[in-house]
């Protein structure tokens, strides 16, 4: 979704306190028309709290929720006209699949004929046309989740809120439903706000990701930008794997900066001014290469390391290394046929990676 899309819902200065504990601390976040926005963070980071506030199940300590220029923060959940998919489905066990899905339509007094047509249509969209008359308990977990999605979409809500909808499913089913969710999102065009703690899910599905840490919004951007240009150490380490080298005596030289790490001089891009705090050089493991001998490479950082551990994972082998003789742990994966995969623990090696792929973060 393009970043120029209209803003549909705007959370402004949302804070939620439980006593002195801030579950959410001054969060500002826009939901854009038709986007797939993922709220991502570790448990307790406030992402579900924000979703509950968007849904109207929770009244925050402070903040506004602007929809078409109106603050709807005091509007109750039943009046917001948002669909919600709960963790654990929350289907009505005493109603058939069709009755579950028809429930929001009955509330909106949609006529019987139109109701049937829409229930049938949305159940076909989620691929459950053949199970209309079953009870939820007769369906598998994945099917129940699709019913929950159908029920939340059938009344054409302005927004669909999803609270970790895939977390209860096993891995294969989860991947299958991810694809389904993407297709459904394209097909219905409703904005989705999706809560998850699974970074893979967030990267795969989202048009934008909002990363939460300890009740604060750490970064909001497209998956690519967040992955390639995390603007804090937390985001860098939370999303994907990241190797960090603490730098001493950092010097700035135009758009580059350099510093010392365990007797090696390392270089990185530094488009923004550096603060006074200690900095780390960050690089994704997939940009790193492993050598037996010291490589001679232009525009690369090179540093000696020692292999400490390796874990065979089929197509690749995961290597754990340390730099500087003692503590600094580095992780990377090499293909199974790479010479590094055959080395023994304790073997001395050299690491290299392009300066272009190195950037600096506050430690």
């Amino acid at each position: 979704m393009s970043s120029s899309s209209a803003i549909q819902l705007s959370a402004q200065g949302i804070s939620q306190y439980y006593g002195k504990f801030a579950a959410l601390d001054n969060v500002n976040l826009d939901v854009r028309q038709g986007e797939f926005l993922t709220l991502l963070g570790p448990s307790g980071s406030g992402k579900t709290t924000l979703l509950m506030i968007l849904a109207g199940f929770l009244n925050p300590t402070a903040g506004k929720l602007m929809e078409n220029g109106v603050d709807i923060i005091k509007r109750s959940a039943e009046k917001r006209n948002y669909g919600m998919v709960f963790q654990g489905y929350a289907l009505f066990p005493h109603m058939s699949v069709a009755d579950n899905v028809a429930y929001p339509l009955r509330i909106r007094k949609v006529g019987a004929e139109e109701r049937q047509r829409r229930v049938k249509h949305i159940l076909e969209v989620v691929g459950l046309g053949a199970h209309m008359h079953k009870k939820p308990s007769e369906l598998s977990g994945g099917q129940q989740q699709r019913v929950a999605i159908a029920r939340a979409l059938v009344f054409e809500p302005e927004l669909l809120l999803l609270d970790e909808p895939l977390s209860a499913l096993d891995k294969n089913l989860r991947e299958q439903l991810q694809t389904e969710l993407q297709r459904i999102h394209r097909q219905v065009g409703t904005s989705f706000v999706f809560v998850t703690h699974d970074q893979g899910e967030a990267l795969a599905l989202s048009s934008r990701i909002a990363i939460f840490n300890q009740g604060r919004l750490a970064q909001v951007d497209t998956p690519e930008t967040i992955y390639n240009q995390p603007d804090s150490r937390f985001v860098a380490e939370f999303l994907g794997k990241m190797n960090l080298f603490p730098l001493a005596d950092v010097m700035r030289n135009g758009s580059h900066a350099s510093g010392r790490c365990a007797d090696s001089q390392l270089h990185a891009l530094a488009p923004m001014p550096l603060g006074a705090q200690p900095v780390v050089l960050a690089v994704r493991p997939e940009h790193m290469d492993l050598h037996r001998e010291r490589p001679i490479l232009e525009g690369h950082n090179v540093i000696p390391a020692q292999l400490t551990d390796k874990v065979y994972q089929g197509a690749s082998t995961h290597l754990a290394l340390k730099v500087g003789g003692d503590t600094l742990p580095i992780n990377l994966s090499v293909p199974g046929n790479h010479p590094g995969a055959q080395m023994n623990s304790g073997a001395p090696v050299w690491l290299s990676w392009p300066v272009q792929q190195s950037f600096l973060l506050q430690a």
Partner: protein
Amino acid sequence: MTLTATLTKPQPRTAKGSPRLERGLLLFPLPVLLLVFYVLPFLGVVGWSFSLPEPGIEQYQRIASDPAIHEMLWRTMRLCLTVSGLALLIGYLLAYCWVFSPPFWQRVVEICIFIPFWISVLVRAFGWLIALRSNGVLNEGLLGLGLIDHPLQLSRNEIGVVIGMLHVMIPYAVFPLLSSMRQLDQRVLMASRGLGAGALRTFWQVLLPQTLPGLLGAFIMVFVFCLGFFITPVLLGGGQTVMIAEYVFLQMFQTSNWGLGAALSVVLLALVSALIWVLMRITRVNRLVG
């Protein structure tokens, strides 16, 4: 109470592979106990009902034709149904508060239910008598405040009996309702609201249908207990509202008509069994549907 044995749900088998013999050994005291101390003596009671004062079905004919007995049976039914209905209503509200309130109010409800529950039925009946009689606490208070000019008749009649029985029965209504509300996924209620349903619709279409088995269970508990109430109607009814248990007692120990007392006991047991059978059928069907 033998009825609780029939009411408890079958427990899921935790130790699947445990030998049959071991399980049989552990369980066999229960049926033996029931046989020796309940079934055999009751067969004796059945025997009396057909043999005292002389062999025949005379006592059952009397039950079928005596208007005084019919009135007593009807009064018993009426009181039991009233108490059950009110106990279910109040019990439902209390169970709801217990499950869905903030922790502080959960504790308050808990205490209000448990403390009376631990006090003897006899003590509570006397307590209500003191509170409700013509010169009792309630009437004196209302008179003193000038809200009434002559005492309200709150005891020695059906009102007193209903109040006294209700007080005893509410916990029995709360417990089955509590367990069925605890089993409910609270997100289902949120889902209903999120889909646009107001509180009333959520209650009728989501909460009530899912707690129906609990309601039926609570009804069986309360109604059956009510049928056997003795002390409370005796004390608070003051001889004006004789229910079946008191009637049986009077037949046996005051008019020495053991045959009629026995026959009424048999009728009571038959009624209770039939009622439980019918309601168990309904709950089972309900569980299948739900």
